[in-house]
């Protein structure tokens, strides 16, 4: 494409003398989707360059291509300090001047900081090839010393605080780096940090930059972008919307750039809930991992959204309500039943479509049909055995209702596209004829075309009286479907937005605002 004015501007600029990393024409196609489309990125020497975008905008794909995990489509070019390097090939390590701290940090939590640093760099050996532990510890102290870290280097990192681990990961990424030009990529380093630790980490990032290292800072927290970054590149739908200095931007304008017009032109179910419909699900004072007392009321035919940043409790609330969050407490009542503790909520038969399809939903060794009918097998019992015919019949019916595109029901589920797999998972849950359905990230890894079909299907179920809860990090899902949205922060519902007030700006604003407090 390259027709977006901002990209044209960037290309027209004379190449700044201090450019450290330059990537042009970078595209990445996965089967069925184009995750990156002609991306251009330039990181200047000594700058903190923020990379922002919504879920599915291509941020993580871009990082993975740079890191050598994915190979780019042919035609991409990349230079680091003026030397070209190949992004169309996968490699263990692209370049020793391009270092990464991935979101999961890549540390060995069973080992201490000394070991972790040594594993990234090298072990100091004596002539008999024994490890010189004393020198090794001194080296680790030296590497970490610049960050004022109060940490016992021998204790396993599992005992360290999240911010300490992040700092160790940064130090590990920089092992053997004697300063000078190069790029350190930080992928959502603050995603799981509590607010006061974020400030601490940002100081450390500043300190790394002050040694002349450029930083590519990937985040969805806009306030951090403003506190830290010199320039920002906004990705949307796999394309670069704009690269520009942060100065002169406001949270509002940046959020608008991230969201753009695509979502506003997107699908709206336009569901309305009559005020007098009965409440189907009530939950009170739900507590547990990341949850600090949440109340939920869900009416018949309502689609209730749950928004919030990672760590806000948005991911955990659905699991707590269906009784799948270990250690959760609170009361729940469905259809006017007696109050029950949430850990016994499995008896209410509330199905949940998880966000992690490969890990928690799809059984990749099973066929489409076996995946679909897994929760309702007792219906096919004839004389104690499964009736193949009625199983096939039910699976076929759902495949038609929810439009699953598969060559055969007996094909492995993994032969389907992400969107069709997601439809199978939804059909598995809906086959149970539930009163309430909980969806986590319903369109994660789903291509744009199927996304709309899923929205329409969910909306048609809601019109038929099904109550839904949709927890999503993708505001597009919430905008498309929800009649009411709970915005969560620090384990509590901090704001409730309903009806026409659910706009992208309102959602982004509510999440960011709470974060800053």
């Amino acid at each position: 494409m390259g027709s977006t004015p901002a990209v044209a501007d960037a290309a027209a600029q004379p190449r700044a003398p201090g450019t450290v990393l330059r990537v042009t024409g970078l595209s990445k196609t996965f089967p069925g989707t184009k995750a990156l489309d002609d991306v251009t990125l330039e990181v200047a020497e000594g700058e903190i360059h923020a990379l922002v975008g919504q879920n599915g905008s291509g941020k993580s794909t871009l990082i993975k291509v740079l890191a050598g995990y994915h190979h780019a489509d042919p035609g991409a070019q990349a230079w680091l300090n003026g030397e070209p390097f190949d992004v169309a090939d996968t490699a263990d390590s692209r370049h020793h001047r391009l270092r990464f701290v991935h979101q999961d940090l890549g540390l060995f939590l069973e080992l201490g900081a000394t070991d972790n640093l040594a594993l990234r760099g090298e072990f100091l050996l004596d002539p008999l090839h024994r490890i010189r532990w004393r020198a090794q510890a001194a080296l680790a102290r030296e590497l970490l010393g610049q960050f004022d870290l109060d940490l016992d280097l021998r204790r396993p990192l599992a005992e360290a605080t999240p911010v300490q681990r992040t700092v160790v990961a940064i130090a590990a990424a920089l092992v053997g780096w004697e300063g000078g030009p190069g790029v350190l990529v930080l992928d959502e380093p603050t995603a799981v940090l509590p607010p006061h630790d974020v400030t601490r980490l940002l100081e450390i990032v500043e300190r790394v930059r002050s040694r002349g290292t450029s930083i590519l800072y990937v985040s969805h927290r806009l306030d951090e972008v403003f506190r830290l970054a010199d320039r920002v590149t906004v990705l949307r739908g796999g394309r670069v919307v704009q690269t520009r200095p942060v100065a002169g931007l406001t949270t509002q304008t940046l959020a608008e750039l991230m969201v753009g017009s695509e979502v506003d032109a997107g699908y709206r179910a336009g569901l309305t809930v009559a005020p007098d419909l009965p409440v189907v699900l009530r939950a009170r004072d739900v507590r547990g991992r990341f949850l600090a007392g949440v109340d939920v009321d869900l009416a018949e035919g309502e689609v209730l959204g749950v928004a919030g940043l990672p760590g806000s409790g948005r991911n955990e609330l659905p699991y707590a309500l269906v009784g799948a969050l270990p250690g959760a407490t609170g009361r729940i009542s469905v259809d006017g039943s007696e109050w029950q503790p949430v850990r016994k909520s499995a008896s209410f038969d509330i199905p949940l479509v998880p966000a992690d399809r490969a890990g928690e939903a799809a059984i990749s060794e099973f066929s489409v049909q076996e995946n679909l009918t897994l929760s309702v097998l007792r219906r096919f019992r004839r004389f104690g055995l499964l009736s193949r015919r009625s199983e096939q019949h039910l699976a076929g019916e759902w495949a038609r209702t929810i439009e699953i595109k598969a060559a055969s029901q007996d094909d492995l589920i993994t032969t389907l596209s992400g969107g069709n797999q997601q439809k199978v998972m939804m059909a598995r849950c809906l086959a149970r004829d539930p009163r309430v359905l909980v969806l986590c990230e319903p369109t994660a890894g789903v291509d744009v075309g199927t996304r709309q079909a899923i929205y329409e299907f969910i909306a048609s179920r809601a019109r038929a009286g099904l109550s839904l809860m949709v927890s999503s990090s993708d505001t597009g899902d919430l905008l498309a479907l929800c009649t009411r949205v709970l915005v969560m922060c620090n384990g509590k519902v901090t704001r409730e937005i309903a009806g026409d007030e659910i706009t992208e700006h309102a959602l982004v604003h509510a999440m960011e605002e709470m974060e800053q407090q």
Partner: protein
Amino acid sequence: MTANTPTDRQLQSAAGDQPSGSGPEGAAAGWRSNLADSLSPRNIGAVYVLIVICIVFSIWAPQTFPRPATIKQVLDSNAITALAALALIVPLSARVFDLSFAYVMSLSGVTAAHFVAANNWNVLLAMLAGIVVALIIGVVNGVVVVVMRIDSFIGTLATGSLVQAFISFVTNDNSINSIKLNGSFSTLSQGTILGIAYPVFYALIVATALWLLMEHTATGRRLYATGFNPNAARLADIRVNKLRFCSLLTSAGLAGFAGVMLASSLASGSPSAGTSYLLPAFAAVFVGATVFKHGRFNAWGTIVAVLMLGTGVVGLGLVSAPLWAIDMFTGVVLIAALSANSFERRNLLRGGQGRFRWHPARWRTTGPGA
């Protein structure tokens, strides 16, 4: 509410697009490709290996190998191995190891032999006693693996060791031998129908029952789901822990039965008779998982694997091969069978987005809490 209309229209068009395969040509082609798939070496590789083994030994030992007596010998000498291997299908399908089964076999054999020899019990009652004792060990296994959440590999290794200690304590490591064991107790396994020993028929009955359970009941499907993706199974309303507990009971009960048959065929209660079945049974059940049903432990595949390995062993005996040749044969066949299968899986998964999780060729154990 305008969105209703496109939904309906799309529904209809999708119903029309649905590949139905109901046309006569489609059905015939589908049938033919199904047949080709099910006869392909990828699906029934072990059957082809069995045929090759038969051909090789028929050429190598034309006087002794291609005879009915060989068939009888293969069947009779492998029926108890088959029973032992079949016992492992249920727990392995739910991704639970039961290493204690071999010791349970010894225990139930000793128990049954003891009650017949010392207490003059009726043979069936003694067999029942052996199985009940085995089931008690099954409960202990369930408590260790499911309730105490100890990795099943380690947990059942530990209980197996305890069982062996108990047997040695009670028997002083002496076999139970008595003239009484030569009567109806030994007929349990040494009787024949049409010249074939009873245990062959027991193995066929157990295999049929397990085939029905794993292929044709909801429980079987749930067991596989539990083994392949326990998190998904849990969220799909499957009671993972209950299934794992019951799977350990099943393996203990079947191992108990196999142990009684073993004691009966030896006409003695040997305190270490079961141990030699540990590795052959696991070998057979893992090779069996590559046959008929890709990556799923299944009864008929296990039977084919037992026959394949057993025929090779019998053939090697007939050509008077040295003892080491038998172990070498087993090792080579195991690696060949499992590697061919794992290559194929990798190719298959390269196309899909699925992650490699659980397959017999790439074993990783996890406790029920993992």
